[in-house]
């Protein structure tokens, strides 16, 4: 057998071609405003001038109407759990002890729910309509990223009526 035939008998099945490209992400004007707000310990949304919905985090445009959302709205520090899940599955890199609660929180004044953790509540007591408030890191630790919001915790207020958030599920 010639060397060419010998090589042909062993097909090349894999090659490695390392590729690396670096990017510098631009958050955009609206999201930059939001992140700046986070670093000040508050939630900033933006209102669509047409449908009047308030988006948080704002992305600069109303995805329904396609117009710029220019009116800034300072949202409340509290809101309502619209839906949730209880995480019972361990995974690599998990930083919180299971079971824990991940919830969609509709901040008062907003028209879109916001993802957050719910703590200071046994996982089996979370429910739709639960009233919660944001707990922030120490003022000195505030930064323009969502780690500044440690979690949401129950306010103790009566649960919100289902009708009050049924349009936001």
């Amino acid at each position: 057998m010639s060397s060419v035939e010998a090589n042909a008998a062993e097909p090349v099945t894999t090659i490695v071609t390392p590729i690396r490209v670096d990017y510098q992400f631009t958050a955009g004007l609206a999201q930059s405003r939001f992140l700046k707000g986070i670093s000040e310990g508050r939630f900033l949304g933006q209102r669509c001038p047409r449908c009047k919905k308030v988006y948080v985090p704002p992305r600069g445009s109303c995805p329904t109407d396609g117009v710029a959302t220019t009116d800034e709205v300072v949202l409340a520090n509290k809101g309502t759990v619209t839906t949730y899940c209880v995480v019972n599955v361990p995974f690599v890199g998990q930083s919180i002890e299971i079971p824990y609660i991940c919830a969609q929180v509709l901040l008062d004044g907003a028209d879109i729910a916001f993802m957050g953790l719910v703590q200071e509540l046994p996982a089996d007591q979370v429910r739709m309509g639960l009233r919660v408030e944001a707990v922030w890191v120490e003022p000195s630790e505030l930064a323009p990223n969502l780690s500044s919001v440690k979690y949401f915790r129950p306010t103790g207020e009566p649960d919100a009526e289902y009708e009050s958030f049924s349009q936001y599920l």
Partner: protein
Amino acid sequence: MTRPVAVVSFAQSKNVRREDHRNEVEVLLPVVGEVLGNVGLTKDDMGFVCSGSSDYLVGAPFSFVMALDAVGVWPPMRESHVEMDGAWALYEAWTLLCEGEIDTALVYSFGRSSPGELLRVLALQLDPYYMAPLWPDPVALAALQARALIDEGRASEADFAEVAARSRRAAMDNPYAQVTGDRSPEELLADDYVVAPLRRHALPPITDGAAAIVLAAGDRASALIERPAWITGIDHRIEPHALGARDLTKSPSTRRAAVGARLLADEASSSVDVEVAELHAPFAHQELILRDALRLSDKVSVNPSGGALAANAMMVAGLVRIGEAAARVMDGRASSALGHATSGPCLQQNLVCALSAQRPADEGVGR
């Protein structure tokens, strides 16, 4: 060709080296607003929306889906996207309009090259086994093409400088241009080489920008504006991916696309006869190759906008060529024009769009 379809509106962002603060949606939003507003339409009037962009530029998956926030797609719309220059999105919209189910379409494209390393990003469009791992950047590949053109005795570095000087001078009248200036070819020849034989002026700028066009069919187009820029033909062709398999000094795909766009009766025809030609030639020498392929006469006004040497937003500059050509038909400066778009290394893919103030005959729906 089936029923007549026309460009009725065109808008573009100011082309800049770097959009420091606005993201893709924020760059696109005013452009879409303007292109619809020009003809008194809203997104709800659009039968179809088609965009052109590349996720590789911003390094974000499905960035074209995010970009739809600039249009607003509720109630749900008929929409499509090409991972190519917006000129090819326009082609897709044109075919749908020809089918007769819709009367209007919005075409847009956006490209911010500043977030990534453009030369490396563009190397990734090459053959992934033998070429891309060597990272040959588009400037080096274009330089090989320019060298081949010189070696054939068909052009000189002075010719490249001539193209660049004319483009920059023309761009002084273009408020959206990025590179403008009144420097003579002799002055430009004092530039340093970036990659020989290409000096700085023979290269396109790196650009962030966006553009949009509204297409309308038949009577709808005539009702929207006085002078629609009718598409009398459009076609695109591609050449082999392997650079070694091509004669880089020629552009047979452009010539064939010109035949498909009805600008030439056949490939042996003598020349393309239009008043204005907006050629998407990112490198100066590529304009010479395209002129040869189309056999444009000296009477044709080439790149009155300044062309891609004045602004070259990736995925956008081709659509802008069609828009600039159409704008000259719509405002009466020309009665016939062509817009050309290219994609891939060394003019690999080429699209030719023929435009006229004269409404073509309605050939009925369907091919």
